C-alpha cells in the first residue's frame, strides 16, 4: 500500500474535527490526537496503537497503523463509549500495563513484536478457558474493546471494502447463488 492511500484512508476515518494533529516535537508526554472525553498520554496512546497493530499487523497487506485504524479506535471510544465504558477502558489500560510490567519488567511499547503477540495471545487463550475468573478482568476488557473496534474499523475501512472484499456501492443485481472461493462478496 502506498502512503498516499494510507493518508487518504486516514483522512476519511478521521472525519472532520475530532482528531487534530498536535505538536509532534519535544514533549514526549503530549498526545498526538485530541480527544474530547478520553484523557490519554502519549505512552498510553502508543500502547493502544501498538496493540491495534499487534492484532492486525502489517504483512504483505497494510496493518492497523497504516490504515489509521488506531485513530478510529480512539474516536469510537471517545465518542461512542459511555462514561462507565470509558472509565473501565482507562482502568483496564492501566491494569494491562501493570500485567505486562509484571510479566516482562517493561512496558508494552518496549516489547518486541513477538512478545506483544505472545501477551495478546495469552489473553485470547484465557478467554477460551471455561470458568476462568480472570477472563472478565478489566485488563482483558480493555483488550477486547480495542480488538472489537480494531476489527470493526478494519472491516469497514475503504481499503478492506474495496480491496479485500468485493463491495459495490451499486450492485445493480441480486445473484441468489454465487460461488465463492476466497474473496467474499457482501
Amino acid at each position, binding site marked *: 500500500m502506498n502512503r498516499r492511500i494510507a493518508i487518504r484512508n486516514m483522512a476519511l476515518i478521521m472525519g472532520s474535527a475530532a482528531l487534530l494533529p498536535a505538536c509532534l516535537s519535544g514533549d514526549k508526554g503530549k498526545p498526538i490526537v485530541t480527544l474530547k472525553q478520553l484523557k490519554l498520554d502519549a505512552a498510553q496512546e502508543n500502547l493502544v496503537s501498538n496493540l491495534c497493530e499487534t492484532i492486525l499487523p502489517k504483512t504483505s497487506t497494510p496493518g492497523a497503523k497504516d490504515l489509521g485504524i488506531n485513530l478510529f479506535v480512539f474516536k469510537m471510544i471517545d465518542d461512542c463509549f459511555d462514561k462507565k465504558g470509558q472509565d473501565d477502558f482507562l482502568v483496564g489500560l492501566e491494569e494491562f500495563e501493570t500485567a505486562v510490567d509484571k510479566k516482562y519488567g517493561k512496558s508494552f511499547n518496549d516489547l518486541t513484536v513477538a512478545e506483544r503477540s505472545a501477551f495478546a495471545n495469552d489473553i485470547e487463550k484465557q478467554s477460551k478457558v471455561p470458568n476462568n475468573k480472570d477472563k472478565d478482568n478489566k485488563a482483558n476488557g480493555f483488550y477486547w474493546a480495542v480488538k472489537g473496534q480494531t476489527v470493526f474499523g478494519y472491516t469497514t475501512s475503504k481499503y478492506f*471494502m474495496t480491496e479485500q472484499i468485493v463491495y459495490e456501492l451499486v450492485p445493480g443485481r*441480486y445473484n441468489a447463488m454465487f460461488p465463492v472461493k476466497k474473496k467474499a462478496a457482501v
Partner: protein
Amino acid sequence: MSTNTYDAIVIGSGISGGWAAKELSEKGLKTIMLERGRNIEHIKDYVNATKGPWEFPHRGGRTQKMIEDYPVLKRDYPLNETNLDYWVDEKESPYVEIKRFDWFRGYHVGGRSLMWGRQSYRWHDTDFEANLKDGVGVDWPIRYKDLEKWYSYAEKFAGISGNRDGVPILPDGDFMPPMDLNIVEKDVQKRFKEFYKESRHFIIGRTANITVPHNNRTNCQYRNKCWLGCPFGAYFSTQSATLPAAMATGNLTVRPWSIVTEILYDKDTKKAKGVRIVDAETNKTYDYFAKIVFVNASALNSAWVLMNSATDVWEGGLGSSSGELGHNVMDHHLGVGAGGRIEGFEDKYYFGRRANGIYIPRYRNLNGEKRDYIRGFGYQGGGSRSGWSRDIAEMNIGGAFKDALSEPGGWNFGMGGFGETLPYHDNKITLDKTKKDKWGLPVLAFDVEVKDNEKKMRVDMMNDAVEMLTNAGVKDVKGYTSDGVLGRGIHEMGTARMGRDPKTSVLNEWNQVWDAKNVFVTDGAAMTSAACQNPSLTYMALTARAANYAVDELKKGNI
C-alpha cells in the same frame, strides 16, 4: 384570503398524505399539502445515499451525543448516524409516557415513507371480519371486496414486487416480478414445505421495491440502503412516486413548515371550512380554506389534530362525540422470534444486497384452530452469510487473522414475529396541556400497553419460530423474546377508527368523520383492527378509495 383557498387540503405528506394529494390533484382539485417539517427534495437531499460505509465517521454507529439527544429513538435500531436527519427532533417535540410507548416519528416532506420497511401485504376477509366474529371492538364497515380493486390500483402505481403464492390467507396482488430467495432460503423453504405442506407457507417478501422500471423510476439496484433515500427512486415513497404524479397535474401546492393546529369547523354547515396552521419557522398563524380536508398526519398526530379541533362544540375535539377518539391505539408487537445456523453451502454466497426477506403468513387460529388467544402473527426474516462479524472472540490475532477477516463466515437464518394487537378502549392517547412542545402546543400522553392476549400470543411466537426453524433443518436454533413494548412496530393505528355507528366510531365506511362529512382520515388512525400484516398498503388503498368517493360527493354537491 382567496390566495389561501383551495379545493382540498391534505394534512401530512407521508404514505397516505402523498396518496391523497396525488388522487385529489389528479381528479382536478386544487390541492395544498401541508407538512409540519422541512422539505426533502427527491435525490438532491438524500445526502448520505451514495456514501460508502467507510465515509461515516462512526461507520453507522451511535455516539453518546446522539443517545443523549434521542432518548426515544435510542431504544431501538433507528438511532444511527446514517439517516439521523430523517427522525424527529425529540427535544422540540416531546411527548408524555404514562406507560412506555416508543414513538418513532419523521417530521418532514415524505414523512416515514422515506424510512419505511416497504413490506406490502393485502388483508383478507378474515381480518375484516375478525372484530365481529370475536366480539372485540367494533365491526369494520368494509370487507375485502370493498378494498380489492383499490389494492390493485395502489399496487400498480406503487410497484410491489412479489410472487403470486396462492396463500389463502394472504391474497395475491398485481405484482412486479418477485425478488429471489437466496440459496439457503430456498433450502429452508424446501424443508419447510416438506414438513408443513399447505398448512404453513414460506414465501419471498412482497415489497414496495420495483423490480422493473416503472413511471420513470429505476428498478431496484440491490444496494439495501433504502432508508437513506433512494437516488434511483426504486422504492415507493412520497418523493419517488406520489409527489411527482401530483405535481405533474399542476394542481398541487406543497407547504413545508406548516403545523396544522386545528381544523376550522363551521357549526352552521356542520363541515370543516379549512385549517389553521402555525408556521414552524416564523411562529405566524395562517388559515387555509377548502371544500374537503384529508387528515394524514400519521395515526397519533391525526388524532391530535382532531382533538384540538371544534373544541367549542365538543370538548374532546372533532370526532370525540363517539368517545373513541384517541382510544384503541394499536401497533404490531414484535421483538420475538428465533435464529440459528445453517450447515453447508460454504462454497455459495449471494451477490447484491437484497432489501427484502422471507415472509411466513399467519397460520394460527385459522380453519377452526383455537389457541388460548385470538388472532395471529406472521414472521419476517431471512438467511444470510456473515462476513467479518462472525464470532471474533473465537479467533486470534495477527496476519492470518487479518486475512481470515475477508473470508465469508457461516450462514445464519433468523426471523421475527409481527403480532396482531387488539383494539382496547383503554389503550389511549390524550392531550397533556401541562406540557408544551417548541411551538407552545400541548403534547400527547400515552397510556398504552400489551395485554393478556398479546402476551399469550408471544409465547407461541417464540416457540413456533424455534419449532419451524428446527423442522426446516436450521441448527442450534435459539428463540428470543422481549416485553413487546408498543410503538416499536412503527405501525401505529386505531385512534380514529372506522365503524358502522357514530356512537362507537369516529369515521364511517368512507373514512369520513361522522361529525364533519368533508373531513376524511385515511392513515393508520382509521384502522378498526390491526391484523398482523404490515399496514401501509392498506392505507394506500383506503386513501385512494376515500379520495375517489370524496370527489364524487363533491361533484354531487353532497359535501
